[in-house]
């Protein structure tokens, strides 16, 4: 069920401002691809174009092509809502729905799209929570509010919520930046398991994390503030961290940036 993403010559705009320029890349199925780069280089913006979340922001638009296997995500007859069901997303800050219980949070994507059968929903809830390594911690309090969990548990709840709709691809926008090291480890273990099933793209500021979890790494950079961000290079993670082609990548990775 995992799918390949092919991006060709993608420009991303906020209104008149070009935020990302000329990105072409391939994301392999059943692998983890990490995006690294300094703040403001457009890696999160680019990530959001992969499930058309970018359009939620007023003025957000793109030029270029994003192919999910052989389907163009930006074709005129493609519904962005459908794209987001296929390409799920986990955000920087855990954001469980405050009015919903743990169970309802997990199955929110199905329930809000019209699935009513309680039995089916309960099964999905258990499967997704197990998939997110959270089942054992919450199985006795599924009716308690999701906001009552710890930060790391909330983030795993959000991952369970994202995989409950059975997406093909899972996008993660700095999923561990608000978490402590132990919760981070739990999420990284989870990412390693999830990549058996899903195509995963993760944005991270933590280079050790990129080195630990990803198979391939893409380095983004921008020439200066106000200029659009670009993809500098993309390669196997080991190559990027040990023997990058570009000087800019090496400078960034070795901490000599700026």
């Amino acid at each position, binding site marked *: 069920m995992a799918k390949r993403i092919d991006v060709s010559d993608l420009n991303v705009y906020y209104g008149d401002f070009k935020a990302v320029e000329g990105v072409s890349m391939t994301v392999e199925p059943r692998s983890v691809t990490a995006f690294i780069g300094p703040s403001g280089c457009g890696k999160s913006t680019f990530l959001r174009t992969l*499930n058309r*979340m970018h359009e*939620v922001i*007023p003025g957000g638009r793109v030029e270029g092509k994003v192919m999910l296997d052989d389907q163009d995500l930006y074709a005129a007859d493609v519904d962005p*809502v*459908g*794209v*987001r*069901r*296929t390409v*799920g*997303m986990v*955000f920087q*800050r855990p*954001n*469980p*729905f*405050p*009015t*919903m*219980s743990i169970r309802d949070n997990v199955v*929110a*994507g199905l329930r*809000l*799209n019209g699935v009513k059968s309680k039995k089916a929903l309960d099964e999905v809830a258990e499967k997704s929570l197990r998939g997110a390594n959270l089942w054992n911690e919450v199985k006795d309090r599924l*009716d*308690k*509010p999701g906001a*009552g969990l710890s930060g790391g548990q909330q983030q795993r709840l*959000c991952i369970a*919520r*994202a995989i409950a*709709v059975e997406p093909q691809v899972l996008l993660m926008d700095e999923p561990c930046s608000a978490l402590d090291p132990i919760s981070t480890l739990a999420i990284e273990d989870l990412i390693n398991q999830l990549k058996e099933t899903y195509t995963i793209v993760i944005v991270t500021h933590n280079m050790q994390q990129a080195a630990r979890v990803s198979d391939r790494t893409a380095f983004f950079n921008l020439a200066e503030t106000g200029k659009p961000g670009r993809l500098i290079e993309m390669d196997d993670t080991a190559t990027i961290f040990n023997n990058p082609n570009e000087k800019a990548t090496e400078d960034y990775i070795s901490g000599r940036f700026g």
Partner: protein
Amino acid sequence: MSTLDTTSGSVPQTARLTSGLGPKSSSRAIKDRAATVVMWLAFLIAMVPLVWILATVVMKGGSLLLHADWWTHSQQGITNREEGGGAAHAIQGTLIQAAMTALIAVPIGVLTAVYLVEYGGGRFKRVVSFMVDILTGVPSIVAALFVYAVWITTLGFDRMAFAVCLALVLLMVPVVVRSTEEMLKLVPNELREASYALGVPKWKTITKVVLPTAFSGIVTGVLLGLARVMGETAPLLILAPYFRSISTNLFDGLMGTLPTMINAGRDNMAIEANSERVWASACTLIVLILVLNLLGRLISRFNKLDR
């Protein structure tokens, strides 16, 4: 701290912070005490009229509320000089009109706020927002005369309680819009994004995620609006005069309400039976609004999960 003093020799003495470890400076202690006293005074002054009004109303009219008759009988056939009867006609009139007003004003107000926060953009949004601001400032007598001009003069209908509701809607809508708008703005954008990212369409995101999250705040806003319109008198006087008997038909002439009952009795305050009824009506109105507010708290508490 002391190192800071020795190294900052070039900074003029007056620009330096005093070193931090001594006792609290006396001038700051005085300012602290003065500010505390002023705030307490302001609080007490604000409480004086509130307590005064409550005490007066309860002392002069509270006892009538303890009679069952007050809640079950109208003033039909009872003159100003007689004791007895009740305010049932006025209570149900007030409640019926408030319910009808809310029925019309809440959907309009909430949907307008949803438009302003979730959909609106550009010039039209600014125009709508400006109109709501203007509506907020419209005095109730103007709303009443406007409805009179439209409903009675232009359309040719009779005076009736429903016309009162229309005028009250004009007063309630802006309150509901403004409070709902503020509550919707408080809903974190992250929740909307989380919902979109699950492939939930925008309208479902609004109805199932945004509105439930803001629910308790919206209820509070609606109750504030209701409290405002339930005490209004001008539209009632102009559009549906006081009636001493039970009347439940919004579309047929007169209907008694608590504010008009108070108004009808205020000319004969020297007569004890009458004046007691006036104070009791005022007390009832306060109690009704209090009960509504408690009810609203209860509803919004039920909506939350942390039981």
